[in-house]
């Protein structure tokens, strides 16, 4: 008997969670730790990061995160592996840190930066092109939400993403008419000619080729290494929901609009420089979407917060397909919604680390970040801190989002206006 049926469902996804190893000769510590046999058998494997000798990655491998239960199981494993890895690194004389946590001011940040690499499997070139184009459209918003500013002894520095600000290996992606091997080769030639970029894997969104040359998965390279696993989970959920949206549109051969590349570059720079405080330029130069703060006099800009909430709200159908719970999306939406209501909610990990640093003034940045890694329950995450700081409004926000996620979405008509052919009949 069939209990559930989702026509446009999720795909396999892998998460490569990056951690920085700090200490004397971190390369040796990484080598020693990776040389040891992991005490914990399971699907998570620890690997060295290519070209980053100070980084260890925890790889989930391609896995399906199609239900709350599947995600819960995977992230429980990931949390266990991360805690065990932190122990092993500590035994080897180092410290395991998330991205952009530097023990001293003034030095170079390069050895303290890493990313969380999300890879989403695609089943055909059309799907790949649609997903890449959708990610490109929302790239500034995604960077603003996932960017990690530097945490030093004096607290969290201003800025959005320290890693992307310093990187010469990350560039805004280009619109794809197709993701066929022939067209990807054309795009590469065009990039080489017009921008001097020789490879597609320098783009923030990389359609990685399979054996036949066509894209087999899409690599999301812009995501900074997060400190808390609940944030990683929320981001994984968001990227998967966006994939389902792209898959749904691709089945009807819609590839999304090509955003103006210059506007995209400017908005991306704003996101990298200002994070969730950024205001994005609307492409047409007309009225931007009114946000919680009311329409701007110029009408050409909207806040990163508004863009993020709009994106998540648009993905209601997809989040329901993924059977998402409020606790999973809360790290993305709770702080932003609280801000919309006029409270100083913590919108992302930069805000969280800023609060933690203020709460424990005598504690160094390394100790603060270590606490988050080794005892996340004690340190708390975005959901817990927001609910603790703004109990009453956070409860209202929870009610609203739980209701939002529960309310069934009407079958949307296909993008060309034809009758919907999706069937999403939950019978169980």
């Amino acid at each position, binding site marked *: 008997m*069939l209990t559930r*049926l*989702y026509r446009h469902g999720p795909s396999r996804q892998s998460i490569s969670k990056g951690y920085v190893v700090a200490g004397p000769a971190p390369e040796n510590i990484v080598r020693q730790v990776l040389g040891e046999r992991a005490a914990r058998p399971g699907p998570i494997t620890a690997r060295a990061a290519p070209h980053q000798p100070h980084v260890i990655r925890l790889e989930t491998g391609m896995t399906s995160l*199609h239900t709350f239960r599947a995600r819960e199981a995977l992230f429980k494993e990931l949390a266990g592996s991360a805690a065990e890895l932190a122990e092993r690194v500590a035994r080897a004389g180092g410290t395991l840190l998330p991205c952009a946590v530097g023990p001293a001011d003034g030095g170079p940040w390069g050895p303290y930066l890493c990313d969380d690499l999300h890879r989403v499997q695609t*089943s055909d070139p059309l799907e790949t092109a649609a997903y890449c184009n959708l990610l490109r459209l929302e790239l500034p918003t995604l960077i603003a939400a996932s960017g990690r500013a530097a945490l030093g002894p004096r607290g969290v520095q201003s800025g959005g993403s320290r890693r992307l600000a310093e990187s010469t290996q990350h560039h805004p992606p280009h619109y794809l008419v197709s993701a066929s091997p022939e067209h990807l080769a054309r*795009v590469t030639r065009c990039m080489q000619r017009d921008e001097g970029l020789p490879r597609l894997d320098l783009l923030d969104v990389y359609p990685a080729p399979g054996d036949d040359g066509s894209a087999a998965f899409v690599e999301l390279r812009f995501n900074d290494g997060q400190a808390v696993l609940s944030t990683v989970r929320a981001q994984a959920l968001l990227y998967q929901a966006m994939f389902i949206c792209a898959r749904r549109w691709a089945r009807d051969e819609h590839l999304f609009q090509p955003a103006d590349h210059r506007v995209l570059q400017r908005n991306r720079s704003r996101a990298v420089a200002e994070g969730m405080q950024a205001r994005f330029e609307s492409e047409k130069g007309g009225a931007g979407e009114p946000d919680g703060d009311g329409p701007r006099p110029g009408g050409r800009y909207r806040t990163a917060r508004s863009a993020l909430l709009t994106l998540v709200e648009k993905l209601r159908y997809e989040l329901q397909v993924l059977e998402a719970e409020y606790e999973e999306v809360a790290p993305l939406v709770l702080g932003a919604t609280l801000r919309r209501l006029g409270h100083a909610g913590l919108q992302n990990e930069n805000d969280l680390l800023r609060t933690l640093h203020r709460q424990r003034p005598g504690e160094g940045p390394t100790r603060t970040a270590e606490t988050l890694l080794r005892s996340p329950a004690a340190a708390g995450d975005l959901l817990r801190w927001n609910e603790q700081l703004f109990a009453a409004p956070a409860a209202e926000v929870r009610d609203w989002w739980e209701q939002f996620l529960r309310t069934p979405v009407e079958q949307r008509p296909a993008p060309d206006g034809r009758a919907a052919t999706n069937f999403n009949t939950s019978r169980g």
Partner: protein
Amino acid sequence: MRPNLPIELEVDFRDFRNAPDTPEEFVAFWERLSTQLVGKPLRDGVTHEVEHPRDGVLRLTVLALPPGQGVVGRDTTFAVHSVLERPRYRHLCARCSAAGQQSHGAYSCPACGGASRPDRLCDRHVVILNGGMRLDGRLNATCEEHVPACRCGGRASFWCAGPRCRRASAWCERHRRQHPNAPDVFYCVDCYEELFPACAQPRCAFTATAFCEFVGDGGASCGRRMCSKHILRWQIYGPHKMGLGLCDQHRQVGRLDDDRLVFQLVAATANRKLRAPRSRQDLPSLQSVHHILLKVRQRAYGIPAIDQLFVRLEQRTGRAGPLERAMSELLQSHARFRSQNVARDVAEKQQGLPVFERLRALLRAKGWGEIADAVVFSDYKPAAKTLYIRLPQELRGRMIGKGGRTIQELGQQVGAKINFEKGE
């Protein structure tokens, strides 16, 4: 009692014909399929293939298998979390369709079909010439039959990226010029000539980056393009500004008489003003012209004499053409600075005369009356504390002394460096 958890699946219909399309069809299809699956073992994470003699292969990937449900039973429940289907192409390649095949028409040929609904083409049938694609998604795509023609009638092979064509004109191989440093950037002949003109010097392979600014009798610049190696820069605006470019035919400025030389200074500066009206390029001061003439003629001109050269040119210049008008305006605005230059010259000379008299007295005290009678004051630069004098060549040796010691001592005694004026 433990709830009967469903087996979670991904169903792949991509190699299956007659796949169900509506919820009702899918439920009916699944009822039939689940009876066939009874007794079959399923493994977690594995893709199981179900072959159908008529419709092809159906693939079932197990996403999650509840404990104890390794074999499908009659009461086994399923949850399908994703259905993989072949995309429904709204745009099919017209060429493939004509051949009875189906492929995605990602590109369109504007010349095929109607203007409102052009024919679509797949990767195999589209032609995108070099330079026909931009990174913002804009494409100059055509079918094989409608590949644009070059102006010569031949089949085009690239879109010119030059300043005249701006990727709106396509050209053939015969008209293709490769960018000197980028192997995959091409231009048509005209755009290439504009961007990378050849140096006019015979047998020079370098790109011309400058042109001759010498103004002929008709008022037009010579304009010969030359590379930086072969152009001469006449530094009339000082060492830190770009001097006038002169080709090999016009670099002998010494052959010009004084009036024509001053004309060149003014006319070339006026031409620069005409080319770039916002530029702050001004005429050199009279003191600078003094230096220019000194270099060209190897003799010093007095500042009032140089001023007269400009006054004469101003009187001669009418307002007939744009160049003359620009020259006239330039000379008018320069007149005020010239009078300041003359006044400065007079003041400097006044400051220099006591120094010169001290020098003369010293020479007489040394018993060099002959030199003291012959020496003439030329100029004095108070900022550099330098006194310029004129003295016949035959008397200079005695005044300079061995290794320049005497003239240095004299300089220290009068409080200024003593130099002989050039060309005397």
